[in-house]
């Protein structure tokens, strides 16, 4: 009888082992490879540096704390050479085919769009915290934790029309998906509010000279210059616009400390509408990030570092926790992408270093606190809050 019971128990045990697929066995931890495709070289190398610093700090904090439910984070960085889609695809293939990463953190619109079909094919989750092109909306597997140009640009034009009295607007923008998206959003808003776009001048990413574009803009006598460019280019454009005698208000969708340094005094009164990261905020998540970043790098982080810290610390961490809790393996292909879709569908509130939670939408967009800011001295000053799609202030 005892022999029969032992044999039955053995058969039941074997049957259970066969019945539970290997992937469903609760993983006791391991290494979660996180791919990054950033601008590590070229004119945008600054972004790659700060983004990788932000993500690196989060990975360091997680690993020092024993990992996420035992899962250590390993970052693997590839270079898209400041916007080169071919380089992004090549880096993406390496990350997905060789390193088998389940998630990639990307930047810039064109490289992100270039690798998105591959990510769908390989069931890889994409998180973008840098690109702002409106074409990034509604792409499977892609979630943007930065508000896109189609979300921010209308507000700055509304501000220009209602508060600055703009009737004739000229636009100067990046000649890529992101810049074209900003320009399209600005034009649409202008048409809605009854102002006229009198000049539209695209420029190459990373250009340092805007003489021809600004001369053409000046000839059309705009009363407001609206910028659809990013990073250092903002500083050069504002500086040269002022030098060329464009004295009217200049508005845009981005400001960075480095652009401020480049633009110098000319940046005075430059106004933006943006989901702004404030390193001086008292929110506990912000403080934990800012203090650690400052201790590690000797300077306050700006929002690009914040966005990629947030990806690892506040987006991947809860996703991994949710997967492990339900007995899954976060390193398995498709696990993170599926969990993200599930979390978004449930309306899961991811924490943010911008203060409070951030809400990701099923179309891949994010809602964060927004405002209108003006440069006073060398810093941004809040001049209007954007609440419920309306400007207050």
């Amino acid at each position, binding site marked *: 009888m005892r022999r029969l019971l032992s044999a039955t128990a053995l058969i039941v045990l074997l049957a259970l082992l066969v019945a539970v697929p290997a992937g469903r066995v609760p993983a006791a931890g391991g290494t979660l490879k996180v791919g990054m495709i950033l601008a590590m070289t070229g004119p945008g*190398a600054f972004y790659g540096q700060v983004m990788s610093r932000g993500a690196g700090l989060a990975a360091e904090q997680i690993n020092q704390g024993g990992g996420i439910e035992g899962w250590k984070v390993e970052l693997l960085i590839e270079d898209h050479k400041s916007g080169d889609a071919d380089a992004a695809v090549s880096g993406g293939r390496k990350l997905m085919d060789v390193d088998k990463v389940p998630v990639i953190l990307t930047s810039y619109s064109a490289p992100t769009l270039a690798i998105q079909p591959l990510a769908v094919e390989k069931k890889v989750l994409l998180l973008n915290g840098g690109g702002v092109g409106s074409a990034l909306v509604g792409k499977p597997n892609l979630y943007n934790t930065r508000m896109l140009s189609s979300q921010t640009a209308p507000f700055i034009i509304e501000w220009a029309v209602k508060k600055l009295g703009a009737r004739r607007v000229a636009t100067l923008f990046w000649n890529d998906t992101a810049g074209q998206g900003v320009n399209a959003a600005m034009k649409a808003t202008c048409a809605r509010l009854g102002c006229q776009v009198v000049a539209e001048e*695209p420029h190459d990413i990373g250009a340092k000279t805007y003489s021809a574009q600004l*001369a053409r803009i000046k000839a059309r006598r705009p009363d407001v210059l609206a910028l659809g460019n990013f990073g250092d280019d903002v500083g050069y454009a504002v500086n040269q616009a002022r030098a060329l005698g464009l004295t009217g208000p200049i508005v845009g969708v981005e400001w960075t400390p480095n652009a401020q340094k480049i633009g110098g005094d000319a940046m005075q009164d430059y106004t933006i509408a943006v989901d702004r990261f404030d390193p001086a905020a008292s929110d506990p998540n912000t403080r934990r990030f800012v203090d650690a970043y400052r201790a590690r790098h000797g300077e306050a982080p700006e929002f690009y570092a914040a966005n990629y810290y947030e990806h690892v610390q506040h987006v991947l961490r809860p996703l991994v926790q949710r997967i492990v809790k339900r007995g899954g393996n976060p390193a398995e292909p498709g696990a993170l992408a599926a969990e993200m879709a599930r979390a978004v569908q449930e309306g899961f509130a991811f924490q943010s270093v911008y203060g409070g939670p951030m809400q990701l939408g099923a179309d891949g967009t994010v809602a964060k606190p927004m405002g209108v800011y003006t440069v006073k001295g060398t810093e941004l000053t809040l001049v209007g809050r954007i609440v419920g799609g309306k400007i207050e202030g």
Partner: protein
Amino acid sequence: MDLDLGLAAQLAVNGLIAGSLYALLGVSWGLVFATTRIFHFAHALTLTVAAYVAVLTAAAGLGLGLGFAAAALAGSLCGLAIELGVYRPLRRVQATQLNIFLASLGLLIAGESVLLILFGPEASTLPGFPLEGIVLGPVAFTTIEALWMGTAWALVGGLVLWLRLTRWGRAIRAVASNPELAQCVGVDRARVFLLVFAVGSGLVGIGGALLALRDTASPFMGVTPILAAFIAVFLGGIGSIPGAVVGGVVLGLAENMGGLVLPGHWQGVIAFVVLFAVLVVRPAGLLGIAPR
């Protein structure tokens, strides 16, 4: 189409400002290329190194004047180091021009990466010159751009006179014109090579400081202006210093005046269209002498 005279005047001035720098960079590279026949792509690295030296000198509180002098010196030393450490050993082992060009390109890429590691990707400003706007009727430019033009033309003029009036200047022209014959009459070719690297690189060093003054210094700042210098040299005619000057000015004016009919971001395309058009009509360039 109505011609907007104000816009035309502004674009012409912009063209002259850009053309002045192209002329300076063009003669600095053209001097090296005409004499040594080395396609010295690493000239862009020399420009960048010199710009950073100017920034560091000014940041050390030594003033902008010393910053420019240090940039010229650093440029010369960098050029000499490249000639002695890379090109001369390659010539010694009978390397082809293509080999030397590839070595130059590799040196540029490696050098930019080293600068990226040393200084980081952030743009560094070169302060110390009062930035004011100058408005003359419909035309506006800055005091820094006025300094660009003044410095560039003073240096180009000085170089032309030096090449015409001095013994070493004549030796350089002799080697550029006919290296074998120059050697037969006692001109030391190796020393002339060193001299053109020192002078050409010193000039591009000042060009780098001028660029850092108006824009900023960054690890990848050198390639775009040096590409413009290449075009200026081929446009004006290889081997002709006045040709490089004319080529630079024509290029600057064409890029900017193109703004009368095309959006501003077509500048790069316009540059190559002008080069193509000139080379079709005059294969030797505007002031170049066609080989007989």
